[in-house]
């Protein structure tokens, strides 16, 4: 039972990271019907932005909660700007071409960020400074680190914040309208270009949070860290039902739990294949995902 609870905590904290990234995939897919392949790399840039800000603040010497918040905010702002730039200069010019063109562009942007990152930051991993002193609480035989607790709490707060923006604000209403039908939303006087840019900013900021959060518990960061994590987060979005925000959270948590669980068995070397196996199963059995609604193709 103890091991089960332990794995549950570990799985949830990993799943929270996937969920935060999956939200960005799902929102962009919602408004543009585009798999933003570069999203995983925005998460990587989030970690690097946090790294540079934290080093500039010399947080390594005097860790503090306030410092960590400043780092996270700075990283979120940087990535939001990067997300908007990517949309403006890579995706907007190809928006009216076929979806395949957009997909190939997205792959191109992803490669550009990964290998551009290697050229600029160097291929060797960097070590993220410890912003918060590590503490371990023991609750009924289960070891919980304050970092994994923080990851879970921060992501839940972020997710509720996002729910609030999407369902309770004017801009959220415009986002939902754009996602429902871009052309009609435009006719209703919504500045869809702005809404799309805003969606990218929001998603990228969430990915940046995930980047900083993951660097708290696994401080090794490198330019290719977003590749696999990004793909798995995308799987999480599909699992929950792409375009569906609560779905992305559920999908992320499920992928995190499954991966941790497999990692604890003797099949741990197959860990990386789990997410893809799940993806294939879900697409064969229920292509719309857990919370998604199947759409009928019209001629």
């Amino acid at each position, binding site marked *: 039972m103890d091991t089960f609870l332990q794995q549950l905590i570990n799985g949830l904290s990993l799943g929270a990271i996937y969920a935060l990234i999956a939200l960005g995939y799902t929102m962009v897919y919602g408004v543009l019907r585009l798999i933003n392949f570069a999203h995983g790399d925005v998460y990587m840039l989030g970690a690097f932005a946090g790294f540079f800000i934290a080093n500039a603040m010399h947080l390594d010497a005097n860790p503090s909660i306030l410092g960590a918040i400043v780092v996270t905010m700075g990283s979120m702002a940087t990535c939001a700007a990067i997300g908007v730039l990517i949309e403006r200069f890579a995706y907007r010019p190809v928006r009216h071409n076929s979806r395949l063109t957009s*997909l190939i562009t997205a792959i191109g942007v992803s490669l550009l960020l990964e290998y551009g990152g290697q050229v600029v930051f160097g*291929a060797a991993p960097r070590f993220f400074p410890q912003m918060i002193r590590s503490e371990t609480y023991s609750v009924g035989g289960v070891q919980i680190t304050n970092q994994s607790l923080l990851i879970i709490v921060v992501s839940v707060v972020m997710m509720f914040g996002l729910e609030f923006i999407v369902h309770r604000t004017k801009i959220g209403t415009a986002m939902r309208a754009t996602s429902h039908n871009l052309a009609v939303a435009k006719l209703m006087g919504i500045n869809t270009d702005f809404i799309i840019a805003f969606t990218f900013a929001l998603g990228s900021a969430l990915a940046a949070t995930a980047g900083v959060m993951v660097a708290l518990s696994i401080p090794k960061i490198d330019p290719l860290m977003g590749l696999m994590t990004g793909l798995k987060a995308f799987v999480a979005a599909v699992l929950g039902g792409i375009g569906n925000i609560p779905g992305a959270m559920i999908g992320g948590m499920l992928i995190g739990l499954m991966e941790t669980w497999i990692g604890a068995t003797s099949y741990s*070397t197959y860990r990386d*294949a789990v997410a893809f196996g799940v993806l*294939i199963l879900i697409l064969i059995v229920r292509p719309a995902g857990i919370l998604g609604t199947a759409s009928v193709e019209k001629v």
Partner: protein
Amino acid sequence: MSFRAKAAAAVITLILLVGLNYVFEGLGDFQIDPYYARIVSLIGISITLAVSLNLINGQTGQFSLGHAGFMAVGGYTATFFTVAWGASIAQAMGSTLMSPLGGSVVMVLSLAVGALSAAVAGLLVGIPSLRLKGDYLAIVTLGFGEIIRVVILNIPAVGGATGFTDAVPITNFFWIFAMAILTIVIVRNIRASTYGRALAAIREDEIAAEAMGVDTTRHKVLAFVVSSSLAGIAGALSGQLFATPLNPANLGFVKSIEVIIMIVLGGIGSITGAVLGAVVITALPEVLRDVDKQYPGLRMVVYALLLILMMIFRPQGLLGRRELSVDWLWKLTRRAPAATPGGGGNVDEQ
């Protein structure tokens, strides 16, 4: 072309390949610098990969992102076949693996094994995933590619993470280019056949194709299986090439993307475009070798920029769906004198 002309072309090609094989492999007195010979070999394998991917991505319009996975399946089974049984097969014929007769027989057998295993993998992957469209298909094929890679990593008999270093280097110039030409001929012939028309119909509009009576699933799976088995052949060649052992690390997502870049650059749907793309993308790292050493990753940055700019300014690729053919060049030379009246150069018309 008449049957006679075709037969003549085949014989001439064969003689040329055998002759060039002597030069490239250094069997006779004269040998090309092994460094360049090697680049040419790699280009040949890339041509097979790119042209085969073009069948599914270009001709059928189904975006597959898992080509490297099928290359891995074919490559590993073929190489394993040679390692396990190659020597005894050659011995049974009173020859060795390194002599022309034994080497060729084992090569043909291993190519067949590679093609067959990759075809089976293509069938298994294709049936469930080809029900999906567009970006979903892309992500599922990517997933299958990754699963194949992880599974290979976990098989110690083929070297796991260290790569298949036990491989016997029996691949040579002749086989590489014979297979590249075979791939081009197969893909070209499929395209010219009724199957090819059906595939083009699926690409243009799947619902309309279905309404016209095309069995879309069957045709898509067929194209996928042929494409995978040709990728398996490329894998078999590359796995048994001198000093390039197969390694799961080189057969992942990035390799699949590299092949995509080749066909996107040349023009999605054009065979000559794919060949052109394969040549450029394989030779480019060698040209940029010094730069790449100084700034690791810069080569990939160049690819990425190329891909993005290509999509923004010329999404159909350099050649689009056009083919560079003898007829086309012929027309070009015919048109040139008309543009400059009185110019010489059309001696053949007199």
